[in-house]
């Protein structure tokens, strides 16, 4: 049963000059299509990866799925409900938000530097009204820190006291704090060193099993994706050019772009 369905998703940006300039130069309107008619579906408890180079539209899709950006056309359905539906009530929207969370690319920009880690983790708990008493909230924070491999003492520290990998763990803990069903991982390890990258990827896998999470995994790195995804979609200039399970994609890529991408990945085996 498909948990998330993206249907003919399109996002355009208006790059036209102001009208007065267009009048003077008779230039036409210019549209940049960042995402062009992309459809995919993700099964519950699995990882779907979107791979592409810069400008492929992968981050735009991520933003649309979490509702940070409205699609120009098409729709996203999550567990039978439309995301980006203007008509739904505030309370319903908040309920949807709780179930879809996100882990970001930059371990530095994704945590508010002026907030203690405990407060960062408590904010979603409060915003979604999950635990009322302070004691319960504190308990929950400790539990979250423990789940991502940090200690309860870390709640009083500030983000700058942590390394990049540890911050990414905090970011994951924040995403978990609302007990979501889906986590969008937007290049969660591309800013990390290799040895730390492995830790974070493994942590994501462990958490997926433990909480039967569904992941939408965005990455530019085919090698990373191959270790994470049940299904891979390849994006090129806003279009989904190929979609397959890893074994098929790497063994017999059908699209020439996919093939080129796979060949370009440096690999120990090809020495």
């Amino acid at each position: 049963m498909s948990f998330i369905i993206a249907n003919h998703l399109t996002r355009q940006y208006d790059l036209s000059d102001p009208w007065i300039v267009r009048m003077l130069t008779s230039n036409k309107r210019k549209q940049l299509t960042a995402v062009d008619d992309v459809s995919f579906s993700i099964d519950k408890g699995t990882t779907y990866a979107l791979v592409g180079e810069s400008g492929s539209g992968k981050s735009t899709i991520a933003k649309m799925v979490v509702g940070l950006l409205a699609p120009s056309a098409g729709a996203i359905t999550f567990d039978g409900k439309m995301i980006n539906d203007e008509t739904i009530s505030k309370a319903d929207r908040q309920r949807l938000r709780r179930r879809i969370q996100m882990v970001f690319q930059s371990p530095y920009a994704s945590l508010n530097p002026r907030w203690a880690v405990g407060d960062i983790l408590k904010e979603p708990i409060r915003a979604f009204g999950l635990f009322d008493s302070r004691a319960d909230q504190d308990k929950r924070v400790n539990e979250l820190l423990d789940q991502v491999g940090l200690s309860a003492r870390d709640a009083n520290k500030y983000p700058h006291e942590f390394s990049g990998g540890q911050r990414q763990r905090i970011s994951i803990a924040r995403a978990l704090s609302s007990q979501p069903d889906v986590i969008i991982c937007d290049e969660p390890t591309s800013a990390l060193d290799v040895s730390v990258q492995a830790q974070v990827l493994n942590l994501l896998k462990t958490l997926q099993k433990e909480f039967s999470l569904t992941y939408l995994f965005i990455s530019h790195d085919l090698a990373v994706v191959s270790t994470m995804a049940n299904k891979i979609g390849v994006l090129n200039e806003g279009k989904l050019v190929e979609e397959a399970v890893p074994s098929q994609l790497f063994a017999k890529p059908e699209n020439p772009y996919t093939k080129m991408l796979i060949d370009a990945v440096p690999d120990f085996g090809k020495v």
Partner: protein
Amino acid sequence: MSDHLLEIKNLKITVATRRNVLNLVDNLTLAVKKGEILGLVGESGAGKSMTGSAIIGLIEKPVKISGGEIWFKGKRIDQHPDEVRGHEISMIFQDPMMSLNPLWRIGDQLIEVITTHMNISHQDAIKKAKHCLVEVGIDPSRMNAYPHTFSGGMRQRVVIALALAPNPSLVIADEPTTALDVSIQAQILDLLKQICKTRGTSIILITHDMAVISQTTDRVCVMYSGRLAEIGITKEIMAHPQHPYTKGLVASTPQIDASSFEKMLYQIPGSMPALDNIPSGCAFHPRCEHAHDKCRAERPEVLSNRAACWLLDANEGQ
């Protein structure tokens, strides 16, 4: 020793902060042979870029070279880097979008570098500049174009042309493909390999990516916390890493492998120590599963001309 173009002996680079003195590079010894690509690999804070800057003499206060020697073609250059900089040794940087002066035509930038280092007429310099562009795969008719009209990959080619223009014998490439897409990365790496082959230019390739190293370099030097961890022929190191850190690096680098998603990746526990808190003995010992007392107490030397690890000592003893 005649096949050594560049030799670094016991290099030490430090920075004095307000509270203490930090070692950015600590007692590093390595050599670059003529016509080879030497990889300098390590994670952030390993000191690899610092080493590159030290060779070309671009270390700036408050960072300084506080020990060791750098020899180039039999001359000691750490005191007078100006004599070789640009002319004999050149460097390219990570972000091609920022590496070119936006106000100058690329042809003029090339000609400036050529006439600075070579005693030739303006006409010849133009010819030479066009030749350089052809060599890196850029249409010479774009001599009069400004940098902003080039894509990232093309700009990196222009930067390479600039670095090659005075015919240096050593080019230091500091993460030259990190800011580029994979498909462009492959092209730039091929270009570097080709230059090394046709011109006989030695290249020091600084990167954090083991896969790039394995595909591009002849020899590799693995750095950890400013120190040399392991050095040797790339193929051997990839196949049989000796230092536990190298082993970890190789094993934790994800590979395209359709079956790997069932498994967990190999992971090195912990994280790189902060510069003001480098562990005693072997800097890697807190993250090393084989560490024993000697590792905690004494700093290992490079053993068997290969790796700085006491485990090798134990192996040799057996």
